[in-house]
């Protein structure tokens, strides 16, 4: 698709949407949002960029193969489950920091799990969309 408006717009929308997706990811524990929605929004950012420019350009921005994000995300999720094991607690027991961090708020192993979901969703969506558009 060749549209100068979309092209210019997507350059600005890409960082904005990614920031928005991280915002959604962080507020997800008690409020609507979380890793799944955040990951979808982040993948929309890249898909929009790929519509406006081309697959090559978008791939250059991402650098790594999006499929690699899947195991990385799973490692995050796995860690959120096994961290309590080292503290002699039952598996998947949430561990929280005592003081809230500025801006982000309370941080615990649940966030680690959400980051994992975010990466897996991003990786899966981009892999599917890129594979389909390569074969078209």
């Amino acid at each position, binding site marked *: 698709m060749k549209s100068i408006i979309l092209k210019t717009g997507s350059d600005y929308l890409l960082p904005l949407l990614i920031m928005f997706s991280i915002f959604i990811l962080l507020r997800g524990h008690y409020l609507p949002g979380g890793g799944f929605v955040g990951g979808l929004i982040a993948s929309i950012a890249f898909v929009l960029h790929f519509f406006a420019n081309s697959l090559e350009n978008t791939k250059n921005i991402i650098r790594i193969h999006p*499929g*690699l994000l*899947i*195991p990385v995300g*799973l*490692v995050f999720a*796995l860690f959120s*489950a*096994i961290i*309590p*094991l080292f503290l*002699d*607690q*039952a*598996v*998947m*027991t*949430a561990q929280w920091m005592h003081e809230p961090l500025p801006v982000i708020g309370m941080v615990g192993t649940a966030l680690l799990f959400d980051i994992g979901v975010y990466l897996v969703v991003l990786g899966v969506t981009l892999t599917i969309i890129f594979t389909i558009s390569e074969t078209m």
Partner: protein
Amino acid sequence: MKDNLIILPVLFQLFSAVVLLFMWNSTPRQKITSVLLSLVSLAISAYIFANVYQTGIISTQAGSWKAPFGITFVADLFSSTMVLISSVAGLAVSVFSTATIGKNRLRFGYFPVLHFLIMGLNGAFLTGDIFNLYVWFEIIIIASFVLITIGGEKDQLEGAMKYVTMNLLASSIFLTAIAMLYGLTGSLNMADLSLRVAEVQNRGLVNVTAMLFFVGFGIKSAIFPLYFWLPASYHTPPFAVSAIFGGLLTKVGVYAMLRIFTLVFEMDAFLSNLILVIAILTMLTGGLGALIQNNIRRMLAYLIICHIGFMIAGLGMSTTLSFSGALYYLIHDIVVKTNIFLVAGLIFAICGTENLKMAGGLYASHPKLSLLMAIPLFSLAGIPPLSGFWPKLTLIKASFVQEDYVVFTFILLASFVTLFVLARLWAEVFWKKREHISNDDFFCFNDYLPKEKAAMVFPVIFLAAISLFLGLGAEFINNIAWQIASELSDPSKYIDIVLGN
């Protein structure tokens, strides 16, 4: 902490799958890693089994949320035995896969998905929460969808369609049953349900829910009117995949049935009779179906159905003796069915065909291998002192004690049909002279590298050795089966440990 130990079979398989995903592009490394990780996983399962065997039931509350509100993982002797046996089967299939799965499948993540499948199986065996059981079933079927379609050949996709449709239907029925159970009792923890279901006034609705569970698990374990997806799909994927499907997937359904109908629902006369009738019909149709098949794997698929009947009959008679027969059969069946599909893979590699009419002359060309393959065949047929004999003996004894002569007759008949089918297999494949030499482009067993040959023969030896142990060490296994059966007949200890009384 010892309680946390029991979640390790699940977490370790997840870890294995993640490690293998990182090696996406390097299939040779994936092969070695998968085998090594399966070995470690076998060691973990054996350790857990030993622990449970010595000290009794272990449970842990995930996320430290107390039962009945959180998700409980419980390892009683039943669960830990199943986890151990599925690790054994997983190791054998992983080794067999290294030689027989082509690059076109390995490149698309065959090994990670295999480990995800085993993770799902372990989770289903260990969970103490009925909704969590549903989630593990979903993980199992999603992983199995990938395994059955990977490679994308035409008949593979055709078989997968039937498999997927029926399994999704089974899942939705299972989910409906869970919803009704939750509506009736307000709980999902199986130990808690066991107490609450007994107090429900509306017995009619309880029976309906029990029937829905029976149908849902029945589709998954391929019992009489609901089995037709199984022979339509199990002969289409590669042999290693057929082996893990034939060995483990239907048995999870049987496991769930044994668990639910001893722990949550009480067997009344109606349910017991219904299960027995269906068990008889399952044995009969499976056996008769196997008689007329010429494709080896289709024949074995019908034999799976036939033998599901034995286990369901053990459940239906619902005495401690019949449970112990069904459990012994379950343990024996996982090992021997996995092995027999691997044997089918070896036969295919040597003869170049799965058709009984075209194959032949295997004993003349490979006498030692033939004798090795005879072990699982004879175990399956139930020739004493091999492993198939003892559980059948227990089941027959159980039906005799209850004076249930119809079941008694049909168990004997089904055993006889099995023997006949396997004798036919032996006569056609091993003894018959081969009519014509196969086409030249077939990649014959003798063309494989010695390393690959070893990877194909070793799992068969390994599983045959375990069947021999199950047969020759019958007293030990019988004790275990009896102990599990007593735990199933009287679940009060299980309930106490889960609810922390």
